[in-house]
């Protein structure tokens, strides 16, 4: 640096200012100027500037050079450089000095004071509340829509920033706040970037005014009632939130994990929590409407009651076969309680829909109907919740623009404030340092093209890797297909064997599938390592898509096996219970293999690398792979709810155990990730994967089962029906018989649901809506680029006006100064 002027005292003073203090604007401006004048590259303009400093030292106006960077203005705007110091290449703004009048105007420009000036914040929020009020009442007029900090010429009155104006604005703001609805008011208050003390002040004033209008009877009685109900609703909502927070599910473990590993690894554990909530909901619904009624009215016990061996926990068969766990236990009649005929005994009576004697009219429970509707409604509500959380997550992470400010984002947005542990903070600093260096290298060596030979080589490597992955997936799928076929045939034949052995042999298929699920992702990782991707996000996406492909094909072949083969002809009395048991086995095996993977993959690997290899590098927690495992497990749970109403409970237990085991393993064995991990994007992708292949696939299978597969004729709630769906139809028909007015409803129902035309129409409308929305997004993208251009033009305008203002001021002062200089030199 050519000149190193020490302005530290000024810096210290400036740092002590309170953000609310307006009078110090000039001082801080002085200090910025001083700082920036240090960093300006020495040039002709700089020397001239120094000359001016010396010349004008005796002038009473304090003169300062305007800070500005060596930013090259556009070539097209040559005319603006005429106001610079003739023929200079640099920005005229650097070379000029400004009088204090100009400075005063500059420093009170709204765009400069919005950050610190309380009055500016208040006036901005006054505008916003005004907008909100107008929007709630009627369409706003265009001239009121001035919301930016830069006023247009039309709106620029003679508003001085005196304290009077601020008090007036405050008054208006309080007025507006009072007129908003309660939830709007709270939202506005919370969003204001003022201190809590001031916000409570504003709130107090607004409430006071409201009470005054209430007391003076100005409020209509209906709106008073509405006001009170809204207040009561808010209190209720807050109490509910407090209750939820007081449950504090896993708050401390999550904080410890995020303190040590950051937001990325935390997102895995938050995902477990989300899945847990879904399963709790399913469990409550099926428990309340299916399990509980059936458990209270158990059917006749079957002949062969097996004893408990312990193997049942793994296979789900044996002792559990005839329990409330499986489909086969559920009654296909209406559960009823008979009235007291013989000395006060409550007997459960089994009727086939016919009434007997003096049976009371409450305590009816149509089991088949309940089963059908419970499963349907549970899936429907889960679908709504999933789509809602998916759209919320998508809205948070969607970027309309392709970002080109990668470095700026890395510097200003990438520090993870959640990380608290000292070693992790150090690791994070190192990571950011490395990533910045990489980005710098990337940005400066952008023209690093490869030769054709290198490109071809890379292409071949990619093709080989994909061939390996697809080949291994196909091989495993084919092997599962034939193995399951084999098992299916054995199932029909092996009746003479020891039942325990037979049960144990049923574990073979789940073990095989879990084994494949464990090994193949490792193979995919190896091929990704061989391919050596440059961009880590591309590598993550490729890895996710390969794993997804594997899991989707495995689930596909399994669904074919269960719904296509087992349901069709298996020689079993109750194929639904068998499928339910299979799903239970798969879930348990998946859990056991996850435990084994945690044990071997993390604990033993760490011990091995520490003791044997003597390296300090611990294994990194692979977030994407673990989340995909969770999604796979959840798909199995959703597939199985129809056949095993208690499966959500099993899944809940599994998730609880998994959380604690994974958490201890991560804390003991893993280290913080080194690669950058885009949390919002990944979370959106995972929620989308949970919704789209996972939930949609499960609901398609369940719908197919309910719609077209013939239920088994000797067990379950849908025994005599052709399809499960007919339970609903029968009920509608019975209602129609009872009440002719409902025939319209029944006809409408049958038209809508059974004729494909309406489904096509609905799908078509949906697609058109999506198309319109995508066009809107495109239009918004264009608007954004236009606005960016406009901002740049405004910047140029501003510079032009400033320099013009200054030159006029100079011209006016010029003759006076020349005269004074002549006087002094004589």
């Amino acid at each position, binding site marked *: 640096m050519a000149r190193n002027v020490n302005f530290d005292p000024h810096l210290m003073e*400036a*740092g*002590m*200012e309170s*953000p609310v203090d307006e009078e110090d604007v000039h001082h*801080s401006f002085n*200090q*910025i100027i001083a*700082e*920036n004048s240090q*960093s300006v590259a020495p040039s002709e303009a700089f020397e001239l500037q120094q000359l001016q400093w010396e010349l004008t030292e005796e002038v009473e106006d304090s003169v300062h050079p305007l*800070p*500005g*960077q*060596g*930013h090259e203005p556009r070539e097209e705007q040559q005319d603006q450089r005429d106001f610079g110091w003739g023929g200079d290449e640099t920005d005229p703004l650097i070379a000029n000095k400004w009088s204090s009048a100009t400075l005063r105007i500059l420093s009170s420009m709204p765009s400069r*004071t*919005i*950050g*610190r000036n309380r009055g500016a914040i208040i006036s901005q929020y006054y505008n916003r509340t005004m907008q909100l009020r107008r929007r709630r009442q009627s369409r706003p007029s265009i001239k009121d829509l001035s919301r930016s900090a830069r006023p247009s010429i039309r709106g620029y009155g003679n508003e001085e920033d005196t304290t009077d104006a601020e008090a007036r604005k405050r008054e208006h703001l309080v007025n507006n706040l009072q007129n908003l609805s309660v939830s709007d*008011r*709270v939202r506005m208050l*919370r*969003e204001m*970037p003022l*201190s*809590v*003390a001031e916000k409570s002040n504003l709130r107090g004033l607004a409430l006071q005014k409201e009470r005054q209008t209430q007391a003076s009877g100005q409020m209509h009685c209906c709106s008073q009632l509405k006001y009170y109900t809204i207040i009561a609703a808010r209190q209720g909502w*807050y*109490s509910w939130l*407090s209750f939820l*927070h007081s449950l504090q599910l896993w708050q401390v473990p*999550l904080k410890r994990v995020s303190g040590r590993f950051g*937001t990325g690894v935390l997102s895995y554990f938050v995902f477990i929590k989300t899945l847990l909530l879904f399963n709790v909901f399913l469990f409550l619904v099926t428990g309340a409407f299916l399990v509980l009624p059936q458990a209270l009215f158990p059917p006749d016990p079957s002949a062969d009651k097996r004893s408990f061996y312990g193997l049942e926990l793994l296979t789900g068969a044996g002792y559990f076969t005839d329990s409330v766990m499986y489909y086969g236990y559920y009654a296909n009649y209406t559960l009823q309680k008979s009235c007291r005929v013989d000395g006060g005994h409550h007997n459960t009576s089994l009727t086939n829909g016919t009434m007997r004697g003096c049976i009371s009219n409450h305590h009816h429970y149509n089991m088949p109907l309940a089963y059908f509707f419970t499963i349907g409604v549970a899936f429907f509500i889960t679908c709504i919740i999933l789509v809602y959380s998916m759209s919320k997550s998508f809205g948070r992470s969607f*970027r309309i623009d392709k970002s*080109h*400010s*990668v*470095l*700026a*984002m890395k*510097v*200003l*947005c990438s*520090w993870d*404030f*959640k990380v*608290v542990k*000292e070693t992790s903070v150090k690791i994070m600093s190192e990571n950011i*340092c490395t990533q*910045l260096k990489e980005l*710098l290298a990337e*940005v400066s060596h952008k023209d690093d093209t490869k030769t054709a030979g290198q490109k071809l080589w890379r292409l071949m490597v990619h093709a080989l890797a994909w061939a390996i992955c697809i080949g291994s997936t196909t091989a495993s799928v084919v092997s599962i297909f034939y193995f399951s076929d084999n098992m299916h045939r054995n199932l029909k034949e092996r009746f003479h064997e020891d039942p325990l052995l037979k049960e144990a042999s049923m574990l073979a298929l789940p073990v095989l599938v879990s084994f494949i699920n464990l090994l193949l992702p490792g193979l995919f990782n190896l091929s990704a390592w061989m391919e050596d991707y440059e961009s880590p996000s591309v590598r993550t996406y490729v890895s996710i898509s390969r794993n997804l492909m594997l899991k989707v094909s495995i689930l596909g072949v399994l669904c074919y096996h269960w719904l296509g083969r087992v349901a069709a002809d298996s020689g079993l009395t109750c194929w639904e219970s068998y499928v339910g048991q299979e799903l239970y086995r798969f879930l348990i095996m998946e859990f056991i293999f996850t435990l084994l993977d945690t044990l071997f993959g993390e604990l033993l690997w760490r011990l091995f690398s520490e003791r044997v290899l003597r390296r300090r590098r611990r294994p990194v927690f692979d977030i994407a792979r673990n989340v995909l495992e969770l999604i796979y497990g959840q798909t199995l749970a959703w597939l199985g709810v129809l056949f095993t109403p208690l499966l959500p409970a099993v899944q809940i237990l599994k998730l609880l155990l998994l959380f604690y085991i994974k958490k201890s393993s991560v804390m003991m064995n893993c280290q913080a990730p080194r690669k950058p991990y885009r*949390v*919002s*994007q990944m979370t959106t992708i995972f929620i989308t994967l949970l919704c789209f292949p996972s939930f949609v696939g499960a609901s398609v299978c369940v719908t197919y089962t309910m719609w077209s597969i013939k239920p088994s004729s000797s067990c379950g709630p849908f025994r005599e029906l052709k399809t499960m769906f007919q339970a609903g139809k029968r009920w509608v028909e019975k209602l129609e018989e009872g009440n002719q007015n409902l025939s319209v409803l029944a006809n409408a129902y049958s038209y809508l649901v059974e004729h494909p035309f309406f489904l096509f129409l609905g799908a078509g409308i949906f697609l058109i809506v999506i198309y319109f929305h995508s066009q809107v997004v495109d239009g918004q993208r264009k608007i954004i680029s236009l606005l960016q251009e406009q901002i*740049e033009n405004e*910047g*140029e305008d*501003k510079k032009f006006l400033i320099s013009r203002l200054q030159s006029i001021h100079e011209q006016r002062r010029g003759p006076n100064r020349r005269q004074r200089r002549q006087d002094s030199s004589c």
Partner: protein
Amino acid sequence: MGNKQTTFTAQQLDAYQDCTYFTRKEILRLFYRYRDLAPQLVPLDYTNHPDVTLPYELIGSMPELKDNPFRQRIAEVFSEDGQGNMTLDDFLDMFSVLSEMAPRDLKAYYAFKIYDFNNDDFICKSDLEKTLNKLTRNELTEDEVRMVCEKVIDEADLDNDGRLSLEDFQHMIVQAPEFLSTFHIRI
């Protein structure tokens, strides 16, 4: 969920609830965290609005802030006197803005103020240099620091005045969805 606490009046708790993103229980929990920093200075009874300020050293020694390189700036931005000495209101404000539910614009406003080391409403080159050095613990060379600062201003400065204003910063935040999840402290 009982109303047995005597620290705040009901109106005070309501006001805090409406002005921050916390529920009653969380506000009380935060009060106890604040009190734990200096039990002899902070009274248990806040119903008559006592004027208690905890010095920056105590705030900066909290486990959530202890190793954060920006802890001093955070405390300065949220404190009333601008030096990091915080009252209970400032404390609640700070954690409310840094909580999960605060909207992006509010967080962007305060993040801007935190990175603006010289409090001049602009993130100029020297601010960026200081930020970088705090981020990387002075591991980058001077040349690299200079290049990074230049590139950052190149990328993010929209109105071409050589430094980042609040609007430039907010525009950049819109393109970085990670900001919402990283600018968050769990308490």
